[in-house]
């Protein structure tokens, strides 16, 4: 049999595409034909090795990026397990108010640990020490086959267990090709380990911060999850110009475990202490609304909910949408991020509010992390 045919067979075997009969004859041939069996094993090794190399290459490029960010010492990218070097706004008080919006859900240390150790259960290691030297290699191979198989199964169906989250906030998609989600920088600071997003159907996907700017309080996450299915173009456009005073708006976000709709209007063109990067809105926003999109009646996104005035109900501050364009311009200068593109196909202008909300909500995500 030709090597290419064996390769094809092995990959069908690993991905679980073989039918029962084919599988039986394949296993039978492996048992009876030692040359065939060796070719199969060699190919499995080779594929494993190739995939490992891919992972190492990805790791290297991530390291390189971290290093170059470190050298440039510009905007702090990535989360905040360690001290965040970043451009804080001159007004630290504003940030303190801001941080209070991302709600902190109790997270016992033990439960985080158990979440992280979950993966280990899949690797059982009985009898290893009792095995003879030459058996060890075989055992390792078998476990590799098992790993490859379980990976390919994961690709298809198995939903992962839900993350133990320390907080909850909101974010929205702006680029369906790269799956970039915009949220607040202060939201990302809540996470010290993992980030995930959850859509309005309750499906959870892992995400990673690719851009954080504490000055504008904007961050961009990338959904890094093979289970995430690409969405059609974003239904809202992002407004370049300033919104008008008195413009009516609606917001969608996750102040609770389900998506919540709210209405309001632009009540001032500047934010807290005349901050020109923010609007003041009159609306009800609660903890968890951080990162919620603010959309006007034409379906244009004019801002991102970020802060509220402590003790003054209904006074909410939203980052002006022009800061999103600034963020995109900065991202375009970074090699790995330069593909970013706003993928919107404005389809809301002629819809009524109910239909606008229907179209938009699929693009609004709960942001979680620990």
């Amino acid at each position, binding site marked *: 049999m030709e*090597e*290419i045919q064996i*390769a*094809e067979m092995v990959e069908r075997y690993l991905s679980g595409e073989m039918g029962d009969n084919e599988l039986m004859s394949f296993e039978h041939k492996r048992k009876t034909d030692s040359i065939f069996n060796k070719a199969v094993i060699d190919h499995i090794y*080779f*594929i494993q*090795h*190739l*995939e*490992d*190399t*891919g*992972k*190492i*290459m*990805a*790791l*290297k490029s*991530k*390291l390189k990026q*971290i*290093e170059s960010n*470190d050298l440039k010492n510009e905007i702090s*990218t*990535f*989360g*905040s*397990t*360690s*001290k965040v070097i970043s451009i804080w706004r001159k007004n630290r008080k504003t940030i303190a108010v801001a941080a209070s919006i991302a709600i902190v859900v109790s997270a016992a*240390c033990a439960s*985080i*640990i158990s979440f*992280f*150790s979950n*993966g*280990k259960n899949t*690797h059982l*290691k009985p009898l*290893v020490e009792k095995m003879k030297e030459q058996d060890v290699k075989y055992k390792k191979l078998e476990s590799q086959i098992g790993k490859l198989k379980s990976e390919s199964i994961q*690709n298809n169906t198995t939903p992962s267990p839900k993350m133990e989250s320390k907080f909850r906030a909101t974010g929205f998609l702006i680029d369906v090709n790269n799956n970039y989600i915009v949220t607040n920088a202060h939201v990302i600071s809540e*996470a*010290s*380990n*993992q*980030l995930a997003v959850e859509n309005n159907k309750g499906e959870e996907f*892992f995400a*990673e*911060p*690719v851009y954080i700017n504490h000055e504008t309080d904007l961050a961009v996450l990338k959904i890094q999850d*093979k289970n995430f299915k690409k969405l059609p173009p974003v239904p809202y456009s992002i407004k370049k110009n300033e919104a008008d005073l008195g413009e009516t708006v609606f917001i969608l976000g996750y102040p609770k475990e389900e998506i919540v709709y709210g209405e309001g209007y632009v009540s001032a063109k500047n934010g807290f202490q005349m901050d020109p990067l923010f609007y003041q809105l009159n609306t009800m926003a609660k903890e968890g609304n951080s990162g919620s999109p603010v959309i006007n009646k034409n379906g244009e996104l004019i801002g991102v909910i970020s802060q509220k005035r402590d003790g003054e109900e209904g006074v909410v501050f939203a980052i002006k949408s022009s800061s999103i364009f600034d963020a995109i311009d900065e991202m375009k200068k970074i090699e790995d991020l330069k593909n970013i593109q706003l993928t919107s196909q404005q389809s809301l202008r002629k819809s009524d509010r109910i239909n606008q909300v229907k179209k938009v909500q699929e693009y609004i995500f709960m942001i979680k992390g620990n």
Partner: protein
Amino acid sequence: MDYLKHDIMLLRGLSRQDSSSINAIYKDVYPSVLNMVTGFSGSAEDASDVFQEGMIILYEKSLDPDFELKSLIKTYLYAVCKRIWLKKWQRDKKTEEWVDDNSQLADNEEEWERMMQRQEELTRMESALKSLGEPCKSLIEAYYFKKMPMMEIASAFKYTNADNAKTQKYKCLMRLKKLFFQDKKG
């Protein structure tokens, strides 16, 4: 939370290549590696190479179900990096007296050799992939690294259909295999 627990979580994050974990490890360990390497007549570039190699070893450890983190990542990774730099140093015959402190490394010489051999094989695969040329390289990467479905690959690479793309992919894979093993002999 104690530090070791925190580091075990970081290691978990690393096993998923979570950027914030990688970043945290970098921030925590890189400065001391840089100090060590430049203190022993290496350049910043050397330090960066050594750190990268050390991170790859730590990453592979993070995937090994038998590996148990017994010291802090900082201690472990620093010791690994020091050992890597020492070996490089010896290879370049610039030998100077240097106490090799492996107390933090549970790995014995044999295990170390195995790890080094593994590094070499990974590098060999990477260079085989590089010399494969286009469109094979991207095709292989799309399928085996990014796990793109064949349908998507077909349209991205402008093949008439998924079957056609599949055939091309296998041909590329066979060429890669040849290159990889050729290199081994050579």
